[in-house]
């Protein structure tokens, strides 16, 4: 039998429980506990994908989340999920998978032609080649390249309900990332202090490196059992910490085990937002590849992966493995495979001598010291290799069915780097170690360059003690420590690593297997001026993708350093950003999907509006009645608006922002906040006001009422209520802290209704007690406290519709009683509720502005408010509003308009041009509506030199709708410019 196969039961699989799965349509069998990768290897499957750019055959390289090549599509009930890692995907009954990036099949891939054309496809090829003509990129080149490159494909939008997800928040004193020897030992120490500890590990089983060494089983089991009894320590297996954000905030993705997944409706991932006082990075090291020609051939794997497949899954990755390595640690795989009865083809060790090599020779294994691999034989899988002395000379052929490489171990520094840790070059491990600020936490074990398990456990304990001392927690079990130390199986004596990054020979030597980046690509980047490691990364795509270059990142930097003639310590690594592992978007969204995407604010009268048949529209977070009809169209809107103009209507304006302003300096403060004057406003009167930003542009408008000498009520637009409160709070505290004023947001305290129309007084008079509402006693802009249907409230004689109107405010809890009382009182007058659409129709006719005109780009002058700006006294925006540019005559100014043809229509956003000149846009329509008091459609627009153009004709044009309407420019006050209606 050739190739890999299951030989003995690994501890991680249950050989009594077989699991059926399929890959590219082929049905196979694995065991419970297998990953897809281990099951594929056990079935002799080597070729699992085609590479990103050259479509080269690729196999499984690693046994975990560092995997660059074995990415597959998972075909599920809800569609295809691409780029799933075969090396972490737990096998389950019926799992259906497909290989990626091959056409028509994995073995026969027509685009493998790219590999033959490789000399024409260097880094930056697309940028340099597909240059002209410009239009061709979008229409020809990009679609072709996208078809040819890339990995998985999405064929359906997965429905939101198909992937339930949630996010949870965790709080801890110490987050321990990684539960190997260092992490477990650290958690043990921290647990004894009573500190709250979170111990997260990406693996489904805690133990890390100790899981592959039987000598450590007893220690691991004893520590895990102890931790399980320690209430302050929470263990989170299957949880990958993928982002470190500073201030002790971390993001982790927890993959739910099948039982928990079933209990949570099929939820697979959970986002954990972790807040911790200190972090302890015990997340180990990543084994490195070596760049040599053919290092991407299926069957070339990392040596550590072979050990994992053997011990955990009982899978021998080959029947005749060869090794290419430069460190003693990797010999563990050599010994293990040999001990399992696998005949080792030979070890190529780049070092002249080492203790581990001597031991291997004692076991009868052939070791070629001081040698390197120059060539790999075989097309779809390894058939053999060619090696030669490092100094040069004759090449020897070695027959082998897999090649297990190890270029050493790089500490996992990505998370520490995200926290700003500097990286220090450590020659003894030929790698960078993180220098984390002690205020943030510690790194320990292999994550700090301590390779052996005993060394890591020792280091984990030491780091935990430092943290415990910082957090003022004594370690209570001082006496037990020495015993615990004695229990640790000793690390073997080892000869240090000797750095080996690349074997320069003919053929492609990859530094990034996922993105098809070769050592030569890195040198090309350097030659072409992309010398900085960050530039090289972006030019070649080295270190991008799901694996973030964990196996080859440092190798690429080393090639770059050599090309530039600089020390690797100076060149460094490219800086990683969150996320360091792929994170499903569904997990980030958590439960905030569909109707839970954002909160809804319902009016106090929401139920009444609903029972009255309202259609709602979201305004900000509010749900406001748009129209009291279920069908669309203008007809019901115009009926509501027309009823206001003819008789009387009532509308719910409770969403207006309401800010209660009180204090001895309240009037002075409002004079400063508003562009107009409020200190002269008598008690019992309201005034329309505008406020500017300090840059002179309009911020918001609204009416402000004086309820007492030191008591005002400010109203804001619905959309700006939070922003205006923030603006006022900021300036009260930062700019005029000497003012004795208190601001209170009472927006939700008061429900407020507008009763508008020629018969409004009859309705209000029937409900409001005591107050005399006749025009002289209660004129336009009067304000009074009153009882409304017996409820203590306020009456304002203000109008947004342009009609005689009152706004009535009652505490929100009394909204329904007041509203119903008004409706009852209004019955004889023909009162009807009107919605936001009708409100908009009425205000456009009247020429009142809203957010469409108060759009942040308009000045007071633009909207015709110049006369409101007070002459004397400072106010926010005063100085910069006076800049010449904001008063320039060619600015866009507010105008009204209507189609010349009474049957014509208007559309928001339509550009206004001079029909005779066919020139550039002179402005645009901001609001439009069919009119009720006027004929045809009317609208508002912002128009250059608008006030000068009143009475002229322009063309309102929307080329994308092919609509061109001749319009007449009007004063914005299209209805009742003398304000007779509101004063009647």
């Amino acid at each position, binding site marked *: 039998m050739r190739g890999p196969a299951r030989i003995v039961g690994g501890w991680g699989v249950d050989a009594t429980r077989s699991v059926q799965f399929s890959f590219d349509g082929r049905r196979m069998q694995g065991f419970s506990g297998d990953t897809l990768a281990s099951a594929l290897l056990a079935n002799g499957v080597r070729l699992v994908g085609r590479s990103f750019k050259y479509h080269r055959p690729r196999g499984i390289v690693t046994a975990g989340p560092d995997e660059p090549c074995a990415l597959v599509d998972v075909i599920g009930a809800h569609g295809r999920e691409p780029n799933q890692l075969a090396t972490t995907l737990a096998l389950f009954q019926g799992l259906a998978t497909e290989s990626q990036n091959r056409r028509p099949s994995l073995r026969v891939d027509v685009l493998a032609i790219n590999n033959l054309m490789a000399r024409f496809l260097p880094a930056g090829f697309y940028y340099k080649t597909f240059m002209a003509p410009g239009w061709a990129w979008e229409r020809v080149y990009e679609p072709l390249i996208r078809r040819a490159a890339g990995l998985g494909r999405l064929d359906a939008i997965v429905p939101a309900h198909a992937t339930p997800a949630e996010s949870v928040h965790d709080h801890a004193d110490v987050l321990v990332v990684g539960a190997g020897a260092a992490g477990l030992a650290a958690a043990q120490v921290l647990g004894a202090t009573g500190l709250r500890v979170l111990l997260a590990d990406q693996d489904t089983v805690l133990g890390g490196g100790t899981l592959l060494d039987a000598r450590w089983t007893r220690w691991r089991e004893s520590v895990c059992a102890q931790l399980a009894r320690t209430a302050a320590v929470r263990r989170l297996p299957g949880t990958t910490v993928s982002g470190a954000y*500073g*201030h002790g905030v971390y993001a982790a993705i927890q993959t739910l085990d099948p039982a928990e997944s079933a209990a949570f409706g099929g939820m697979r991932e959970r986002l954990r937002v972790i*807040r911790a006082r200190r972090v302890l990075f015990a997340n180990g090291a990543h084994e490195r590849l070596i760049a040599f020609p053919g290092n991407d051939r299926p069957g070339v794997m990392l040596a550590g992966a072979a050990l994992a497949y053997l011990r955990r899954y009982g899978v021998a990755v080959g029947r005749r493995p060869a090794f290419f390595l430069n460190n003693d640690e990797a010999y563990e795989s050599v010994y293990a495979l040999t001990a399992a009865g696998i005949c080792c083809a030979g070890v190529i060790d780049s070092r002249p001598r080492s203790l581990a090599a001597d031991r291997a020779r004692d076991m009868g294994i052939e070791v070629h010291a001081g040698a390197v691999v120059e060539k790999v034989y075989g097309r779809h899988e390894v058939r053999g290799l060619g090696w030669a002395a490092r100094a040069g000379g004759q090449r020897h052929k070695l027959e082998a069915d897999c090649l297990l490489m190890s270029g050493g171990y790089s500490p996992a520094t990505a998370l520490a780097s995200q926290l*700003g840790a500097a990286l220090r070059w450590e020659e003894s491990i030929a790698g960078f170690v993180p220098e984390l600020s002690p205020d943030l936490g510690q790194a320990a074990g292999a994550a700090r360059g301590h390779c052996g398990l005993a060394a890591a456990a020792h280091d984990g304990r030491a780091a935990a003690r430092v943290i415990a001392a910082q957090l003022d927690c004594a370690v209570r079990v001082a006496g037990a420590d020495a015993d615990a130390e004695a229990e640790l199986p000793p690390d073997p004596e080892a000869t240090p690593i000797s750095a080996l990054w690349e074997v320069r020979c003919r053929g492609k030597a990859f530094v990034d297997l996922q993105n098809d980046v070769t050592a030569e690509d890195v040198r090309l980047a350097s030659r072409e001026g992309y010398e900085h490691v960050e530039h090289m990364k972006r030019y070649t795509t080295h270190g991008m993708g799901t694996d973030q270059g964990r196996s080859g990142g440092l190798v690429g930097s080393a090639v770059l350093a050599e090309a530039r003639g600089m020390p690797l310590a100076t060149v460094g690594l490219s800086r990683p950003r969150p996320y360091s592992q792929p994170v499903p978007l569904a997990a980030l969204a958590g439960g905030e999907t569909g109707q839970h995407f954002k909160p809804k604010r319902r009016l106090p009268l929401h139920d009444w509006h609903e029972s009255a048949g309202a259609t709602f529209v979201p305004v900000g977070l509010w749900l406001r009645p748009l129209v009291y009809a279920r069908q669309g169209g203008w007809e019901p809107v115009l009926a509501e608006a027309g009823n206001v103009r003819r008789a009387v209507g009532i509308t719910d304006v409770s969403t207006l922002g309401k800010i209660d302003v009180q204090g001895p300096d309240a009037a002075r403060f409002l004079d400063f906040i508003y562009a107009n004057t409020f200190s002269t406003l008598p008690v019992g009167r309201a005034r329309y006001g505008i406020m500017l930003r*300090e840059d002179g542009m309009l911020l918001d408008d609204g009416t402000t009422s004086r309820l007492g000498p030191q008591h005002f009520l400010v109203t804001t637009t619905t959309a700006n209520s939070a922003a205006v409160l*923030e603006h006022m709070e*900021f300036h009260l*505290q930062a700019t005029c802290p000497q003012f004795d004023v208190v601001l209170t947001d009472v927006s939700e305290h008061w429900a407020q209704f507008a009763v508008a129309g020629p018969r409004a007084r009859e309705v209000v008079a029937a409900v409001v007690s005591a107050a005399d509402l006749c025009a002289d006693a209660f004129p336009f802009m009067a304000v009074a406290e009153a009882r409304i249907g017996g409820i203590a409230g306020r009456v304002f004689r203000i109008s947004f519709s342009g009609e005689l109107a009152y706004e009535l405010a009652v505490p929100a809890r009394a909204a329904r009683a007041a509203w119903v009382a008004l409706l009852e009182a209004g019955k004889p007058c023909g009162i009807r509720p009107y919605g936001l659409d009708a409100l908009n129709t009425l205000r456009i006719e009247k020429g009142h502005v809203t957010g469409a005109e108060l759009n942040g780009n308009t000045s007071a002058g633009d909207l015709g408010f110049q006369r409101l700006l007070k002459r004397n006294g*400072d*106010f926010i925006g005063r100085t910069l509003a006076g800049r010449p540019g904001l008063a320039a005559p060619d600015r866009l100014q507010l105008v009204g308009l209507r189609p010349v043809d009474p049957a014509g229509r208007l559309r928001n956003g339509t550009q206004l041009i001079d029909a005779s000149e066919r020139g550039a846009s002179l402005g645009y329509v901001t609001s439009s509506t069919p009119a009720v008091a006027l004929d045809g459609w009317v609208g508002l627009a912002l128009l250059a030199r608008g006030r000068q153009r009143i009475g002229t004709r322009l063309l309102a044009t929307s080329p994308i709708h092919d609509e061109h309407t001749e319009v007449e420019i009007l004063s914005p006050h299209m209805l009742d410019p003398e304000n007779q209606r509101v004063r009647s």
Partner: protein
Amino acid sequence: MLRIPCPWCGLRDEIEFRYRGDATAIRPAGDGGVDAFFSYVYERDNRRDWHLEWWLHTGGCRRLLEIERHTLTHEIRSVRDSAEALSARPAAAR
């Protein structure tokens, strides 16, 4: 994500606050002229250093806080209420 130790509410997430910019930018007197206001509104250093800035605790006590944050590391060195911060400044800088 920042976590801000509000003197009134305790350690709170950044999401509860609104950033209100450079706390050393002092609004000129009303008659200060266009140049002074232009500088106050638009001109900001973008230094890699400690930075005094205003944060308004909109989702909490609604107090304006003066926070000293390092623009590179996001470390927060001091937090105090605006009233305390402003009273500690020389009169000319208020």
